[in-house]
């Protein structure tokens, strides 16, 4: 279920051959013939991959039938890069909060055990025995 362009981009990038094609294209415009050279697969198979990349907006292909140079389109790739970065920042911040919260909890726990016989906020007489398991 591809409900967003990002999923379509990831789908196109899921194949290592396609990633290698993009890597080659990042060096500059290239013909289909040149692209197929490093791979042990037929030019029609390369063309199949190119169609997937083109459909995802990752490359553009020239019009001249024989030459048909392929060029990398930065837009979708930038989206992926941004997406990964966005996620990294999100989790880094959440883990920062986890770290700080852990320190708060342990500090206040230590504070509680220092007040002998008293519990914070509890209405009952029950002893708090938070033994660690």
């Amino acid at each position, binding site marked *: *279920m*591809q*409900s*967003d362009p*990002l*999923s379509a981009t*990831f*789908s196109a*990038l*899921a*194949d*290592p051959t396609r*990633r*290698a094609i*993009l*890597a080659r294209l*990042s060096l500059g415009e290239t013909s289909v013939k040149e692209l197929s050279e490093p791979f042990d697969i037929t030019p029609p198979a390369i063309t199949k991959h190119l169609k997937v990349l083109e459909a995802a907006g990752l490359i553009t292909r020239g019009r001249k039938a024989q030459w048909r140079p392929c060029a*990398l389109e*930065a837009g979708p*790739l*930038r989206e*992926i*890069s941004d997406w*990964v970065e966005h*996620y*990294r*920042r*999100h*989790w*880094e*911040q*959440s*883990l*920062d*909060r*986890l*770290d*700080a*919260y*852990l*320190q708060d*909890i*342990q500090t206040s726990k230590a504070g509680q055990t220092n007040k002998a016989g008293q519990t914070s906020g509890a209405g009952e007489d029950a002893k708090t025995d938070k033994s*660690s*398991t």
Partner: protein
Amino acid sequence: MTVQTQTAAETFDLTLTRVLDAPRALVFEMWSNADHKSQWWCPKAFTLIDSAENFRSGGDWMSIMEAPSGSQYRMEGTYTEIVESERIVFTHHWVEDGARGPKTLITVIFEEEGTRTRLTFTQALIDNESARNNQQNGWNEFLDMLTSALAERR
């Protein structure tokens, strides 16, 4: 005692590691106890405005957070594996304006390091058949290529 990190070998994975100054069981509780989790689960400037937790294998979870701008973001998923004080594995995706974002798998590993805990967090993409079947080989190199290619295109 180290626990082998098992990451899903998919396209894209993000790995973060923290060494937290707390015992492992307590760190795990920060994830397993919904009240504790709500205290740190979203990024700094955000507010968690709603959440539901079914902390068991096969259980669903959901969080809605509000950005400083007032925009709301929903994330949700399912716990797939829980090993007490050791490992939590769950799926995660965003829902924004009714559209579902790419599905990812998050693995959190808890390892003792003396009195501290090493937490290893990994997020991998699992949204499509080809992603699941393909090897991860070359993904990190690909990301490096991406960064330099984009840098040249300012």
